[in-house]
Every structure is written in structure tokens, then in C-alpha cells.
């Protein structure tokens, strides 16, 4: 359960907490949870978009972590291991919801082209600069395919490197880079669509105002 935390300098270091948690020390479990729960919950919530489901999946990820913690040998970063568990938990849930799914190491372009936003050929790309804020970005993120979204969240939001993402997602480094680029490109398209809609709406409102004056 939650409890007051000691000041940063008085808190047990992660490696010590891992060692103690392997022996079943309840305080060490809690320490590890406090260290990592925000990052895990943030990724999970942005993946599933539903707080109750995110809570459930975060709990599942930590349960799996604590069940297996005695097997952790420190050959990978603890957070990478934990995120790998979290990613598996989330992707499993999403796969159950949306079958058939695409492997991360398969080219997803064909599926993406069909599911992506439709644009007028030759239409000018609206600028997203000036219209991009965090709320819009969060909204656009929801529309990304799960594989892209996960890589984007891990790299651009959480700050993981491609070699870490490759370990977390069990894919190649090249694949992680390629997925990230596709994710950013798709986000740009989604944001441009939002911008087009906004401009169209403004024009409509302006013409309605003009019409009502006449």
C-alpha cells in the first residue's frame, strides 16, 4: 500500500531493492513499484486509452514482474525487462481485441495504406507548426496503429534508444527505426488532417456568418 517515501537520498537504490524483492521484502516491492509505475502506467494508458483498462494491465505487468523477479539476473536493465513485460501484456490485450494482427517485423505498409487517412492527390500539405500542442498530439496518437504507437511512445515520449526498444519489442534495431519513422510520418498526416478539418470548419463558419448578414 502507499506510504510516505523517504527523501531521495535515504531511499534504497534500485539494485538493492531488486535483491531484497527477490527475497520477498514487501518494502522492496513497493520501492520498485514507486520507481517504475508512472512510466509503465503512462505507456499503457496511452496504448489502451482507457484508465480502468490501463490500471488492470499495469497491475498485470507488475504481477508478472514480481512473480518472475527471482529469475532476474541483471543482464539487461531492469526497466527494459519491466517494459518488455508491459509491452507484451498490452499487445496481447490489443491482439485479442483486433484480429488479425501484423507482426512487428513484417512490412505493415499495405495494411497501413488501407487503414490510413485518405488525402486528395495534389492537395497542399497544411503546416502543422503553430497548431501542434500536446492535446492534439495525444489525440493523434490514439489513431496510430498499435505497433507504431508503441515504438513512438518508447522512443519519443519515454526516451528509449533503438537498441533498447529492439530488446523490449523483440524486433531488430532497423525495424524499430523504420517503425518510428512511419509512426512520425503517420502522425504528421493525422495532424494535417486535423488541421484541414479545422480550416474547413472555419471557412464554413465564416461563410455562414456572411450568409446571415446578407
Amino acid at each position: 500500500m502507499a506510504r510516505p517515501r523517504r527523501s531521495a537520498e535515504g531511499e534504497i537504490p534500485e539494485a538493492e531493492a531488486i535483491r531484497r524483492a527477490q527475497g520477498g521484502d514487501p518494502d522492496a516491492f513497493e520501492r520498485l513499484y514507486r520507481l517504475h509505475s508512472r512510466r509503465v502506467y503512462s505507456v499503457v494508458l496511452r496504448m489502451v486509452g482507457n484508465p480502468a483498462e490501463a490500471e488492470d494491465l499495469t497491475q498485470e505487468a507488475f504481477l508478472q514482474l514480481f512473480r518472475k523477479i527471482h529469475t532476474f539476473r541483471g543482464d539487461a536493465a531492469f526497466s527494459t525487462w519491466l517494459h518488455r513485460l508491459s509491452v507484451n501484456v498490452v499487445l496481447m490485450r490489443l491482439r485479442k481485441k483486433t484480429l488479425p494482427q501484423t507482426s512487428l517485423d513484417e512490412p505493415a505498409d499495405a495494411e497501413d495504406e488501407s487503414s490510413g487517412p485518405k488525402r486528395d492527390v495534389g492537395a497542399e500539405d497544411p503546416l502543422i507548426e503553430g497548431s501542434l500542442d500536446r492535446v492534439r498530439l495525444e489525440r493523434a496518437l490514439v489513431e496510430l496503429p498499435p505497433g507504431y504507437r508503441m515504438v513512438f511512445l518508447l522512443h519519443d515520449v519515454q526516451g528509449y534508444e533503438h537498441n533498447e526498444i529492439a530488446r523490449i519489442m523483440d524486433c531488430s534495431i532497423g525495424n524499430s527505426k523504420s517503425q518510428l519513422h512511419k509512426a512520425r510520418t503517420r502522425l504528421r498526416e493525422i495532424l494535417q488532417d486535423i488541421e484541414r478539418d479545422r480550416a474547413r470548419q472555419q471557412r464554413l463558419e465564416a461563410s455562414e456568418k456572411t450568409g446571415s448578414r446578407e
Partner: protein
Amino acid sequence: MQCQEFDRYATQWMEGERAPEAAEHFQACARCSTKIADLELIASAAATLPELDPPASLWISLHARLEEEGLLRTRRSLGERLREYFPAPPRTALATATIGALAALLLFIPQSPEPGISMDGGGSPSTWSFARVHDQLASAEAEAKRDVRLRDPEVVASYHQNLAMVDNLIGECQRKVNEDPNDELARQYLVTAYQQKTDLLSALSERDALGD
């Protein structure tokens, strides 16, 4: 280099690689340079997205699952754990009378509720006890604010931080008990949260008596 080719190179470009032919295309092509600017904008906006706080109830339910599965060794007492935050010798100083009364009250709060108990409704013994504890805590806190003079700024900061966390937990548990007065786990956590606050105020008064 053509736009399509540059597009395939964009990942490397974004990572700082600058092949001469790509740089030449980038300089000459407004479409590609605008696209790269947008992608960089998206990446930098993403880095500012905040981390999100899980609800306090998440640890409560996770802890319950860990206990159910027998993954936890027996916990040390709350007093022992709280002493880590405010290390002080065993209680040589007397806690205030209010804190003593609180500790006594906490002993008598039923862990299992009567049916239909509400935090705000009157009448039942456990409702009465929770309300009494709440009032006693409020006056103990007021006493501590009035009487205790801590000098070490680190201790003061740590006290405020811990108090805020315990208050949050109490609020969370109270909401849960209000939603479902028969939720035994929530009631136990509420009692424990009250106990934490009592111990915190008690440790504070000891600290004060010992000269910070």
C-alpha cells in the same frame, strides 16, 4: 537524390547523418525540408508529454494480489517502517494526549463493517469510530502545527511531503469506503492510513521533544 529516396533516408537524417547528396536534396526541396521540420516538431512535442500518475488504488490492489499469492514476506510494523523516515530513539518522549487517544481509538475500529455503514451516515459504531478518528487527527495535526518547531529544513520538507502522501491515501481510502462500505480491504487500508498519520504525528512530536 529524389524525394522518394530522401524519404527512405529520413530516419538517418533525423538521427544526424548528413550524406552530401541528401543534404543537397534537403536544401533544394521545400517539400522534404518542410516534412523533416514537421517530424522534428512532432518528436520534440512528444518529449514534453507528461508522465501520468497511476491511481493510489492501483498499489492497494496490487499489494493485495501479491499477498494473496504469497509473494510477500511478513511486513514490518508500520511503526518500524515510519521510524525509518524519522529515525529517533524509542519513545522516550511522550506523545501528546491527542495522539495517545487516537492510538486507543484505532484499536477499537472494527475491521469488518456492519452492513450499510457509511462514512457520512451516523449511528453505527464503526462510522462513529471513523468520524472520531478523523476529528482527533485533525486536532492532533493542528496541535503539531501550533506546537512543534522543527529546525532542520530537510526534516520539515520530508514531513510535509509525507503528510501530503498520507492525506492523499486517506482521501482515496475514504472514497473507496464511501463507495462500498463493505469493502473490507478498503476499510483496513483506511485504518492503516489513519495509523500512518498517527505515527507520523507521533514521530514528529518525539523529534521535537528531542530537539529535532
